Each structure stands twice: as structure tokens, then as C-alpha cells.
């Protein structure tokens, strides 16, 4: 369809175009245009002629007269449809579609290749990728390697309007902290060393060593010396510490006790039995503190003694009267301020039978033991051993010591005391430096004047006269009482057939110089005038009398304890025949009372029993009543009055007795 002339004309056009181009012009300038030899020679008119050409999609080379055999019509027929396409160039591409099988195969087979395929993929047309990555969105599409690799990672970031967000919390302000230890303590020391000083010190040290009787010069001995010194110091310091605590705890114990037994303390101080008003003459005893010590529970109270200086303190001797139950004993000190625990405790190997506290030096206590020893304890000294003790060498008794009594200091100002024992000896003991010196005052056994058995006189008790220094009384086991003198050791001044059984106690009246009292297991208490050998009073108490004691405040008042557990208080001034108070003070029926003692100041008594208990009792007002006005003008007080009171009683008795005799 395309006309041939158009082809030639187009050629021409091209040539013209070439010619007219600026670029061409420049470099072809100065050169003659070469013309092919066979170029058409055209006239001007021909050249100016316009040739119109229409470009169509038809292939000018395509044959237009193709005839094919039609089997349907069984004849040759020209085909109207001609292929217009002309292929000018063909190149096989190396791109693969990523979804294709081959691509997949490649991907799996080799990583290296994979990366290539990735590149290939990215090279692929956007149209191809679109269906594959719908979630990535349009933004992702144009991206090349990066977007591909991103796709593999879990996190997808928005590449276009993505913005990183971050916030910063407030940082805590920095603080500085430091501490400083205290520097080790320091001190300053100064001294001067020179030869004479060194010499002096050595000489001094040597002298000290010599003084210690340690003839040493070597180094080791010196060390020993030092060590022992140190030990001593240690001991001392430890001891000091202990005593410090001890004192504090003692105070504390007392405070606690004061609290616990406040009602008792109040009773002790203030309670007066109001019912006494109506009872006229009789009185009662109010039990106060009860003292006991666990370790002395099995022992019976064998001796009681108040301390003269500290009126709240008393000593208790523990032991046993039973021959078959002899064993250890104990010496304990109680204070009314602390009823829970003893102030002092001295365990002894033998039972204590008697004790006496020195009246001026109240830290000295003389003690007599069942085994015949006498000992002196010093409360000021530490340790549980007595400061003095008699031994077999130094004339101890061969039988139990029944009584010890301090005497006035002798002419050399040595303390001394008397002891009396079943072996019949009355011995005076003198404390000289660090030993006990004994002197036999009287050997009652060798005095044949009285009707004692050949084995000897068994002395139970003795008592010394207050004013007449040399005069003393001894009570014996067979019931006799002897009046003796320190000066006449060969014989008795008097013998009283006092009791039918052993004399348990003999005591001078503290006021009246002639009167003494005795008690015995034969149930009786007797009061005597030592000038008369028959009793002035006899009281039958219906039980063996353990002890009897004069009151310190009245010449006519005394108290006795019996083995049935009763305390009997008499005031002869009020009733000459019967006790004004009879009161059982023991918890158990079987308990026997063994001893009684009046406090020298307070209106209380202490009684000891055979179970180791000591009970303190307050005397009701009636029991310590001063003589009433009806007796006359007896308001003045003093020993004279008391003596007169007793004398009056005695004179009443003497008359009828003398009449009777």
C-alpha cells in the first residue's frame, strides 16, 4: 500500500534534516557535502513539491495476495487477514517472575542466588509486584533492596511519614554521700631514758623481787612473776565486777521484796490489833514474814540470835537435835528487809547447835557445833570458812556444844567467849591474832559434890549474869541447874533441883539481878530467885518447852515455845497464873517449835521450828502493854521501875512461901 515514491522522498527528507541540523552544521562546516553519484537530479519545482505521507500500521512488505486452500469449500481462497507485524529485534530476557516455579526453586537452592533473584524481582515491573505485597502498601513498592529485606524482618517501619518517638524520664539528681570513720584513738606518752633512770628501775625491780622471796634473775622466772601478777589482777577485777553487780542486785531484790510484801511491811510498822481493847488482858500474835531457805529445809532451827547493831538482822543456826539424824548444818542470816533469801549463808559440816552474835562487834559470830567444835565467823570476811575454829589440838569439846556466849573483852582487849558442852567442860575461848586459845573454866564432871553419874555431868545450857560478872548458871541434861562462879572452879555455889528432865534454857532476867528463868522438856517453865533454891513461879504448858525468852522491854514479860507449835506469852504483872497469849503459829500440826527470840527494839518475836522455818510475829498491844495507871504512879520508865515491878511480885510470893516453909 505504501507508495514507492514516498520512500524516496523520505530519504530526501532525512538528508535535508541532516543538513539543516545545527549540530551537524558546526562540525561539517568547511566541508563539502558529498553527494552520492547516483543521486537524483531534481529540479527546483520538483524539490518544492510537497509530498504528503500517511503513516499506517500496515506492513508495507506484507503480502496482500495470499491464497490458501480451503478444505471446507474445496477451493483456493485469498485470505483477507494478513499478519502486519514486523519483527525487527529479539532479545531473550533474564528476568523471572518471583512467583514462578523457577524463581522459587532458585530461592530455595541458594542464598547467593536468592539475593540475585531479589534483585531480579525488584527489577520486575511494579504491576507484577502489586498483587504479591498488598500489605506493604504503595509506599513500599518502589523501594528496592532495603524494602525487601525489611519485609523479612518482623518490624515494619513506615518509610514515608514514619517518625521516631521517644520520651525521656527525669533523671534523679545525683547525690553524694560519704562517711568518715573516727580515727583510732591516740594518746601521748613521754618519758626520758637515761642510764641512771634505767639503773634505778632495775634496782627497784630487783628489790621487789627479793621482797617476794623469789630469788630469780632469769627471764622466764620474771615472766612467771608477771603472769602470776596478772592473774591476781584478773581475779581481783573479776571479783570487783561481781560484787558491783551483787550490790545492785541485792538492792533490787530488796525493792522487789518490799513491793511483794508491802502489806506485811505495813502491818509490821502500823498494824495494831484493835480487838485488844475489848479483850482486856489477852493479846494476839500477828504472823509477819516467814523465812526459809531451800537448802536448809531438812534442818531444824537450833539457835536464833538478833543482831544488836542492825535490828533487822538475825542469825539462825541450823542443825538437828536428833542423834540419829546428824549431818551437815548451816548458819544463815536473814534480814526483815528481805524475807525471800538469806543475807549470808555459811554451810557447815556439822550441825550448828548454838550461836551468839557479839554485842559490840556485830560482825563476829561465835558458833558451837554438834561435833564439839566452836568457831567464829566474821561477816566482814569473804569466804564460807570461819575465821577461827577449834580443833582437836586446840581443846575442842568432845561432845556437842550447847551454848556459846560472848564475854566482855579481856584485859588485853582480846575478844573471848564461853562455851559449854555435854562433856561437862565450860571453856573460855580467846581470840588471839589468828588462833583460838582455850582455858577450861570448870570441869563439872570432876566435881563430885553432886549426884551425877560417873560418866560426867551433861551440861545443856549456861547463862551469864549481866551485872555480877563472875556469876553464871548451867543447866544440865538431868534437870539440875548449878550456879557457878568463874573464880571458884572447884565447886558449885548452888544447885537447884529444877526439873525432872533436861533443862532446855536458862536465862537471867535482863532487869532484875536476882531472877532467872528456866524451861525444860518436862513441860514446865520456872522462875527463880537465885538466892532461893525453890522456884518462885512454875507454869505447866502441857508440852515440852523448847525455849523461853525474857522480853527486852518489860521485866515481867516472857515468852516460851512448846513442841506442840504454840507460843505462850506471859506477863506476870497482869496474870501470874496463865499466859496472856497462847497461839499456835505453825502450819502443820507436827511441827515443833524449837526457839524463840525477842527483837531488842521492835515489838516482834521470831520463832524457829524443826522444819527450818523461822516465823516472825508481831505482838499485839496487850502483850507489850506498859503497866497501867491503876498500879499507881508507875509512869516513869527505866530499869529501876522494871526491877521494882518484879520485886513487888516476888515479895508477894516470898511471904506465903516463907510462911509455908
Amino acid at each position, binding site marked *: 500500500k505504501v507508495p514507492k515514491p514516498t520512500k524516496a522522498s523520505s530519504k530526501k527528507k532525512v538528508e535535508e534534516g541532516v543538513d539543516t541540523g545545527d549540530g551537524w552544521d558546526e562540525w561539517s562546516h568547511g566541508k563539502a557535502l558529498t553527494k552520492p553519484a547516483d543521486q537524483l537530479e531534481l529540479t527546483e519545482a520538483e524539490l518544492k513539491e510537497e509530498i504528503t505521507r500517511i503513516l499506517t500500521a500496515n506492513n508495507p512488505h506484507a503480502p496482500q495476495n495470499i491464497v490458501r486452500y480451503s478444505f471446507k469449500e474445496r477451493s483456493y481462497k485469498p485470505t483477507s487477514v494478513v499478519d502486519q507485524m514486523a519483527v525487527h529485534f529479539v532479545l531473550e530476557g533474564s528476568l523471572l517472575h518471583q512467583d514462578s516455579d523457577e524463581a522459587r526453586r532458585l530461592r530455595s537452592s541458594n542464598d547467593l542466588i536468592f539475593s540475585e533473584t531479589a534483585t531480579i524481582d525488584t527489577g520486575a515491573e511494579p504491576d507484577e509486584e502489586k498483587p504479591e505485597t498488598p500489605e506493604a502498601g504503595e509506599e513500599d513498592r518502589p523501594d528496592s533492596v532495603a524494602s525487601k529485606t525489611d519485609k523479612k524482618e518482623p518490624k515494619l517501619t513506615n518509610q514515608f511519614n514514619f517518625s521516631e518517638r521517644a520520651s525521656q524520664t527525669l533523671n534523679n539528681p545525683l547525690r553524694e554521700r560519704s562517711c568518715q570513720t573516727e580515727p583510732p584513738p591516740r594518746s601521748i*606518752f613521754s618519758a*626520758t*631514758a637515761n642510764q641512771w633512770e634505767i639503773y634505778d628501775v632495775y634496782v627497784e625491780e630487783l628489790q621487789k623481787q627479793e621482797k617476794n622471796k623469789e630469788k630469780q634473775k632469769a627471764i622466764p622466772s620474771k615472766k612467771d612473776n608477771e603472769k602470776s601478777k596478772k592473774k591476781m589482777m584478773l581475779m581481783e577485777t573479776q571479783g570487783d565486777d561481781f560484787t558491783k553487780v551483787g550490790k545492785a542486785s541485792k538492792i533490787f531484790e530488796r525493792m522487789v521484796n518490799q513491793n511483794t510484801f508491802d502489806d506485811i511491811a505495813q502491818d509490821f510498822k502500823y498494824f495494831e490489833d484493835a480487838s485488844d481493847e475489848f479483850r482486856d488482858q489477852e493479846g494476839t500474835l500477828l504472823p509477819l514474814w516467814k523465812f526459809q531457805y531451800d537448802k536448809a529445809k531438812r534442818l531444824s532451827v537450833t539457835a536464833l540470835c538478833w543482831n544488836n547493831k542492825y535490828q533487822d538482822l538475825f542469825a539462825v543456826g541450823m542443825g538437828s537435835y536428833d542423834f540419829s539424824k546428824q549431818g551437815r548444818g548451816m548458819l544463815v542470816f536473814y534480814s526483815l528487809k528481805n524475807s525471800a533469801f538469806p543475807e549470808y549463808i555459811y554451810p557447815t559440816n556439822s550441825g550448828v547447835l548454838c550461836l551468839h552474835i557479839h554485842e559490840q562487834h556485830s560482825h563476829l559470830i561465835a558458833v558451837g557445833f554438834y561435833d564439839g567444835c566452836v568457831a567464829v565467823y566474821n561477816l566482814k570476811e569473804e569466804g564460807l570458812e570461819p575465821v577461827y575454829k577449834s580443833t582437836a589440838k586446840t581443846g575442842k569439846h568432845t561432845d556437842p556444844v550447847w551454848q556459846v556466849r560472848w564475854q566482855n573483852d579481856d584485859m588485853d582487849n582480846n575478844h573471848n567467849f564461853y562455851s559449854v558442852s555435854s562433856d561437862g567442860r565450860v571453856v573460855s575461848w580467846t581470840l588471839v591474832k589468828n588462833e583460838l586459845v582455850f582455858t577450861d573454866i570448870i570441869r563439872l564432871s570432876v566435881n563430885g559434890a553432886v549426884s551425877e553419874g560417873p560418866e560426867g555431868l551433861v551440861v545443856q545450857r549456861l547463862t551469864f549474869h549481866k551485872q555480877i560478872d563472875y556469876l553464871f548458871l548451867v543447866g544440865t541434861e538431868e534437870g539440875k541447874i548449878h550456879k557457878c562462879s568463874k573464880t571458884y572452879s572447884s565447886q558449885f555455889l548452888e544447885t537447884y533441883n529444877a526439873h525432872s528432865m533436861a533443862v532446855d534454857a536458862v536465862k537471867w532476867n535482863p532487869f532484875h539481878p536476882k531472877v532467872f528463868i528456866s524451861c525444860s522438856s518436862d513441860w514446865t517453865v520456872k522462875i527463880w530467885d537465885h538466892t532461893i533454891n525453890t522456884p518462885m513461879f512454875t507454869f505447866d504448858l502441857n508440852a515440852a518447852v523448847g525455849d523461853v525468852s525474857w522480853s527486852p522491854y518489860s521485866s515481867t514479860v516472857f515468852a516460851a515455845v512448846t513442841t506442840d507449835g504454840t507460843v505462850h506469852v506471859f506477863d506476870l504483872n497482869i496474870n501470874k497464873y496463865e499466859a496472856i497469849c497462847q497461839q499456835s503459829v505453825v502450819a502443820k500440826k507436827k511441827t515443833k517449835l524449837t526457839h524463840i527470840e525477842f527483837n531488842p527494839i521492835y515489838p516482834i518475836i521470831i520463832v524457829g521450828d524443826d522444819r527450818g522455818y523461822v516465823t516472825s510475829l508481831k505482838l499485839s498491844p496487850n502483850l507489850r502493854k506498859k503497866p497501867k495507871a491503876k498500879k499507881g504512879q508507875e509512869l516513869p520508865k527505866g530499869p529501876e521501875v522494871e526491877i521494882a515491878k518484879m520485886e513487888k511480885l516476888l515479895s508477894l510470893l516470898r511471904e506465903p512461901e516463907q510462911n509455908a516453909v
Partner: protein
Amino acid sequence: MAGTGEGKKEEADYKRLHSFPLIRHTDMPEEMRVETMELCVTACEKFATNNESAAKMIKESMDKKFGSSWHVVIGEGFGFEVTHEVKNLLYMFFGGSLAVCVWKCS
């Protein structure tokens, strides 16, 4: 001392008698004191003629045993006033003529 024979004898006697270590003042605890004293004795006997070496030995041993900064003075005559950490001072005489002062202060 007199230069007479008697004096000499006395001197010898003194030397013999006064050879033991004598602690003049210390605030050390028992164990430390004993150890230090023995160390001083050893050092003074080892370097009987050279106090400096003895002092050095004592100082070094003490530094090792009880921590650093010990000071030692040994001599026959000297005066001093030192500041020391408490429980760390020993002042002793030895051999009749030597005074040894050992203290710690850093």
C-alpha cells in the same frame, strides 16, 4: 660507779642481774605485749652493737605482724614525747642500759 675493783665487780653483778627485759610502760594487750617484748629482746641480742639495725628489725617485724607505721627508738639515753595509737605502745628497758620504745602511729 667507782672505778675500783669492787666497783667492777658490782658492775658485773649489775650486768648479770639486770639483763632481763623490764617493761616500763605499756598499754598493749597481753598477747601483743609478750610478743613485742620477745621481739625486742631478740633484736637487741642479735644486734648487740648496732642499735640502728635492731630498731630496723623491730620496726619491720612489727609492721609485718601488726600492720604498718610502727616506730622504734632504741638508745641508752634519750627523751621523747610521742603521739601513739592507744594500745600500741611499749616502753621497756633491756640489758641494763638500753631503752626501747616501740609505738604505732600513722
